[in-house]
């Protein structure tokens, strides 16, 4: 029986872990508290302003449309996910809770759109936080 060659799989060297810089922690945290601020502290003024505008507009329009602000809960799964989305807006969410803004129940169609606007604003802010982190880590210019 002829000998068959066995190939040893090449071991890929592990990529060196990127060192976490203070900016990599600060930028997403600032971006969570104030949408766009994660870009501002890295001198990305234009991007930060546009992100602040987009997230802020969605959140404010959501409130103006009578949208509901979800509170931390352990009830319905959709309510829990709604809270996770809302909380992504960070400072805007905390401020609106402090000022008791937003409806407590969704009574009409426009309020339903508003509720979705607030959740989407939070999720878009999470995307901008991740972007601020990538810039801080040097993965993006």
């Amino acid at each position, binding site marked *: 029986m002829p000998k068959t060659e066995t190939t040893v799989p090449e071991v890929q060297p592990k990529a060196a872990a990127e060192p976490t810089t203070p900016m990599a922690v600060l930028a997403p945290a600032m971006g969570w508290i104030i949408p766009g601020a994660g870009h501002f502290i890295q001198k990305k003024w234009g*991007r930060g302003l*546009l*992100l602040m*505008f*987009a*997230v802020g*507009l*969605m959140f404010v*329009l959501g*409130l*103006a*449309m*009578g949208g509901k602000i979800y509170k931390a809960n352990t009830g319905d799964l959709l309510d829990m996910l709604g809270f996770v989305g809302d909380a992504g807006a960070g400072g805007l969410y905390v401020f609106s809770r402090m*000022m*008791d*803004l*937003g409806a407590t129940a969704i009574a009409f*169609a*426009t*309020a339903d*759109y*508003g509720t*979705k*606007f607030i959740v*989407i*604003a939070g999720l*878009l802010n999470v*995307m*901008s936080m*991740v*972007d601020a982190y990538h810039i801080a880590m040097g993965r*993006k*210019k």
Partner: protein
Amino acid sequence: MTLAALFSTTLQLSHFSAAVICAFCASIVFGITQRNAGREMLHYGAYCFAYFVGGLFLAGWIMWLIHH
């Protein structure tokens, strides 16, 4: 005027206008976060917006066909 009073009057938007505003804001964020260079960001944002609005019309026509 307090903030709560400011938001006491409800803004009435149609489903279409709400969806277009949502598409506009989402496209800005997508454009900035998903591309590296300024021009690419603009192109990708416009691309996303066009697809959002195109999808909106498509979904509208599909719902109209289902209804009729």
